[in-house]
């Protein structure tokens, strides 16, 4: 009887950032990114369409308020709300899930402000073309939940996506915030590693705002 051959070379697998391969260290920061993509967008989208549907948008039409003032005035409270959400979720991560922040807090904080501004602007864009609250609610749901859960790196790393999934992922702010959230929490990263992602995230703001302004007419036909 021949002995079973021993392997002639070893493969030393190193699970980086997460030695025990526990999903909590990847999922908790990912949840933070997910929630901050969904809630601010849905609330923001409804905030504008609500006025259209219930008729109070006449205030915008008849007063000398500009469209930009109107939209920013709507957006700022939701950014503040989003940051309050961030504070709660950050505390829960540390206190309840025991997921420590290994990297730079200031990088995470700055990125979160930029991110929440971008996701509220995403909701704003949807609200600019939807006419009814149902359409705005379903629109935000389908246009945020799907890219957020499937194409932003939660299930599959963005570097592996192809085809339409890749395009949808690239056009969604969460794809750029997820590496920041996971990076600061679990990979222990700081500003130098994350500057590109924060910068890309910031580009969403003027782009989405401009599109919303173009779509929101001062006077409904």
């Amino acid at each position, binding site marked *: 009887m021949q002995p079973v051959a021993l392997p002639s070379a070893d493969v030393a697998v190193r699970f980086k950032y997460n030695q025990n391969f526990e999903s909590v260290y990847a999922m908790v920061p990912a949840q933070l990114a997910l929630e901050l993509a969904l809630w601010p967008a849905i609330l923001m989208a409804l905030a504008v369409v609500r006025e259209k549907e219930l008729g109070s948008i006449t205030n915008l039409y008849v007063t000398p308020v500009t469209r930009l003032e109107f939209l920013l005035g709507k957006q700022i409270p939701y950014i503040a709300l989003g940051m309050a959400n961030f504070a709660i979720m950050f505390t829960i991560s540390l206190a309840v899930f025991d997921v420590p922040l290994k990297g730079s807090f200031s990088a995470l904080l700055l990125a979160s402000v930029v991110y929440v501004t971008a996701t509220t602007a995403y909701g704003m864009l949807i609200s600019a073309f939807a006419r*009814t609250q*149902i359409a705005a609610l379903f629109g935000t749901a389908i246009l945020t939940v799907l890219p957020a859960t499937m194409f932003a790196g939660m299930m599959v790393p963005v570097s592996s996506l192809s085809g339409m999934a890749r395009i949808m992922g690239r056009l969604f702010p969460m794809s750029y915030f997820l590496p920041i959230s996971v990076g600061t929490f679990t*990979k222990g990263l700081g500003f130098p590693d994350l500057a590109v992602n924060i910068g890309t995230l910031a580009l969403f703001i003027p782009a989405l705002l401009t599109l919303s302004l173009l779509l929101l007419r001062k006077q409904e036909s």
Partner: protein
Amino acid sequence: MRTLANIFWLGTKELRSFMRDFVLLGLVIYAFSLAIIAQAQSRAQEVYNASVGTVDEDHSELSRRIIRAFLPPYFQTPQPINERDIVPLMNAGRYTFVIDIPPNFARDVLAGRRPAIQLNVDATAMTQAGIGSGYAEEIITTEVRNFLSRSERAPLSPVNLVVRIAFNPNIESAWFSSIMGIINSITMLAIILAGAAVVREREHGTLDHLLVMPLTPFEIAMSKIWANGFVIIVAVALSLYFVVRGLLGIPIAGSVPLFLLGAAAYLFFATAIGLFLGTVARSMPQLGLLYLLVYLPLAMLSGSNTPLESMPRWLATILQASPTVHFVSLAQAILYRGAGFTVVWRQLLITLVMGGLFLALALRRFRRVVTTV
């Protein structure tokens, strides 16, 4: 009889207001076409296109063979990188796997010194890292064994393992993810349409118009269920025939009418939940938040992303009450394995019972809410 007629005509009112909302119509079409195709392409359930970086410090025939063995579709063509770039590139999430082959690796293998190859895995990319590191290890050991057997005839393994994958021979996750995409769209749309149909009438005050007519709250609720359910069933049927079977070319093993029957039962449940939430929410933003609270757990814990068997026992037990879980297993049984009514009747029954329960709950609240506006 009169009740049935009332329910029917009230439902057509729902349909008319749905058809007039072009943005909503467009979004529904998107949810059952482009969104399904994109999900079919995303391949969330398998290792596909995983990014690999390689540091070859050996430059031997063996090291080149190992690197060449990382092939599509599982892995992207490996990119050579410098050793000092491993950390920054993995920090940036550029590569999920980095293989580091040490100097003199081939010589040490031949000399029987058992050298080690380092396989760095980004363990924050959970699914891909978990399955992919197994594949990568397998590929490396196979290459080393083949290399040796050519040069010195290493003993062959005494047992051969032949894997037979049943029901989905190419383990294509597009089969899987497209159907799961449809199920997610059903849940999303049913809850929102039914919930919003109630909230809208409350916000506009038209619920009062309905109440002064000779109609019962039951008739109002049922009309919303059938009309919104009807829209969704039509969308699902079209999506299965034209998008899943037609455009994606995915074979459907079982009976589509039987699946649609299951979908109808599930819609009954989902619209009942929607109605219930509609009676709880006082405004559309509230409904939006409630919807997220209900939808995310239903969808994320439906068993389509993570099998129930891998969840903690208590969670798996609770989830037995979730019709989404039963609908997912019903859909898989019918569409992939060609199961008939005798196999799936239990899931169908549980879904209907849960739907009935929520409808009763929604009706109780509905009566209270509409009579105390």
